[in-house]
């Protein structure tokens, strides 16, 4: 059983390292943030599996804290750049040649 848990944890660690490719490539910051979010969940799972392997029940608390605070970085990400004024049209509907105020912000 312990060997099985360890193999599962190792597999998940490998998926994190593979997912890093998305952080490196991007291309947008949304992609990078999503990858970080996935790593958070995977990390929680690895911690739960390790708590069975290493027989350390306290690791469940660590996983709990990770799960609890997984959203903080994403909220900070939304504030980073912020959102345009309520009247702002979505980027997809803007004309390409028309330089708008919030385009300048970037």
């Amino acid at each position: 059983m312990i060997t099985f848990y360890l193999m599962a944890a190792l597999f998940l660690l490998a998926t994190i390292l593979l997912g890093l490719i998305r952080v490196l490539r991007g291309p947008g910051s949304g992609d990078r943030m999503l990858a970080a979010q996935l790593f958070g969940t995977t990390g929680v799972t690895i911690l739960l599996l390790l708590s069975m392997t290493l027989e350390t029940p306290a690791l469940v608390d660590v996983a709990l804290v990770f799960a609890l605070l997984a959203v903080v970085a994403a909220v900070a990400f939304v504030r980073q750049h912020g959102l345009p004024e309520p009247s702002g049209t979505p980027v997809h509907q803007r004309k390409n040649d028309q330089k708008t105020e919030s385009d300048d912000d970037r």
Partner: protein
Amino acid sequence: MSNLLLVIFDLVLLAGLLGVAWRCLASTDLFRAVVLFITFGLLLALAWVRLEAPDIALAEAAIGAGITGALLLVTLERLRSIAVERRRGRPDQPPDPAGADALLHALHDPPPPRRTFVPALSFALVVGGLMVTALWHQPDAVGLEPVVDEHMGVSGVDHPITAVLLNFRAYDTFLELAIVLIALLGAWSLGRYDRLPARPAPGPILPGTLRLLVPVAIVTGVYILWAGSHAPGGAFQAGAILGAAGILLVLARPRDLPMAPSTPLRLGLTAGVGLFLAIGIVGLFIGPGLLGYPPEWAYPLIIVIEIAATLSIALTLVALFIAGRPAGDDH
């Protein structure tokens, strides 16, 4: 079999850590560097787990996931808004022609000049090589574990790390609280806080999530604080969790920050250091010495200090995140 798997796990984890750190420091795009640094913190927590340090993993989880990431992302936002402001000009100042450059540089760092490559690499290699050599030749020592174990009876708590932090080496912890407070004073001396130019996401999703998360965070923080006397947990981890919850509130709040009134805020910020020192000085007269407690009083005193320290750490972390004196606090 499982030993071998653990070794493979360690090697993969460490390779990942080194790789992430390397790519992070090689990024030209600062946002990418910050996301890689958040991932680095996650992997680091796993490393602490493998080193049989669940306490540290707990603190790393709260700080890495909750505080550092948000702090860095918001700093990038502040730098960007400063660059935009300079480019546009302000009411009292014409637009700054160098502003366009500043905008470019605010969130991008050009690749470093080739000239510094060889000296930097050789210096880092020499330092790293010396450290590795020293570590490999260091003899195995038992450390202080038996000593701590022997004195656990008089510490007042059942968890060795809490005993070390709040009893055996209380002066370290006391000075650590003071340093955190000094960092805050430093940040406050830079001026009032900058109002973030960005707005939070509209819609019901974020407030709804907050309504779920913040109470759970408070309960978890108190639970971790309580667990500290017999299991991994304690004032630092609890303070970090509550601080992260406070940061979440600050981030989700539209425009105006929910700053506490000045006097209670200051009392809360200094409660940890103040109470610690007061109890420590009392110990000088009626106890075993400065920052020492009589064994029969140790448990309640440690609990009182821990509660105050948790409060102070949480408040200080939130105030450091806001980075600046509360508005209307000057005179």
